[in-house]
C-alpha cells in the first residue's frame, strides 16, 4: 500500500503522472474520433479504440487515488469528503435518470456523461468546502 510521502512530493508525483496521461487521453480521443470511421470499422477496432481511450483515463484515476494516499492528512480528508459528496450527488442523479427512463419520461440517456458529472460534482464540493472554511 502506498505510504504518505508529504504534501509536496505527493503533489510532484501526481503532476508528473497526470499530464502525460491526460495528454495521451486527448491524443487518443482526437485520433479515434478524427481518423477512424467507427461506422465502417470492425468490432475489434471499435473495442480497441474504446479501450485505448479509457486506459489513460483509468491511469488518471489511479494517480488521483495515489495522491490521496500519499498527501498530508488534512488534504486527504478534504479530498475524500469532496469525492464522497460528488459520488452521492452522482448516484442521486443516476437514480433520478433511471426512474425517468423506467417511467418513460426520457429514453437513451448516455451513461458516459455520469463520469464527467461526477468530476464536476466533486470539483464543486471541493471548491465549496474551501470557500466555506476560508482556507
Amino acid at each position, binding site marked *: 500500500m502506498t505510504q504518505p510521502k508529504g504534501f509536496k512530493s505527493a503533489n510532484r508525483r501526481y503532476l508528473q503522472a497526470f499530464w502525460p496521461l491526460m495528454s495521451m487521453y486527448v491524443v487518443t480521443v482526437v485520433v479515434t474520433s478524427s481518423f477512424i470511421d467507427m461506422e465502417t470499422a470492425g468490432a475489434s477496432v471499435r473495442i480497441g479504440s474504446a479501450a485505448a481511450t479509457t486506459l489513460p483515463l483509468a491511469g488518471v484515476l489511479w494517480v488521483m487515488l495515489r495522491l490521496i494516499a500519499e498527501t498530508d492528512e*488534512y488534504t486527504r480528508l478534504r479530498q475524500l469528503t469532496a469525492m464522497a459528496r460528488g459520488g452521492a450527488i452522482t448516484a442521486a442523479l443516476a437514480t433520478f435518470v433511471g426512474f425517468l427512463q423506467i417511467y418513460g419520461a426520457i429514453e437513451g440517456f448516455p451513461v458516459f456523461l455520469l463520469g464527467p458529472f461526477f468530476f464536476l460534482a466533486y470539483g464543486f464540493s471541493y471548491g465549496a468546502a474551501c470557500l466555506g472554511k476560508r482556507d
Partner: protein
Amino acid sequence: MKNIIRALRAERGWSQQDLADKLDVSRQSVNAIETGRYDPSLPLAFAIARLFGRSLEELFDDGPSVAEAAE
C-alpha cells in the same frame, strides 16, 4: 481543540506557508489546525511539538477534564 500554534508561529515570524513547508503539509492544513477546525493526528502533533520544542500538553488544550468539569 484549542492550541497556541499561531502564537508560536508568530513569535518566530513564520507565515502559515513557512510552517506548512517545515511540516510538509499544505498551508490549508496549518490554517485548519490553528483555527481549531482540524485536530492533527498524533504523528503530526508530535512533529509540530518537536518543531517548536514544546510538549503536546503545552501546544494543545482539550478543555477541562471530565473530573474538572464535574466539580
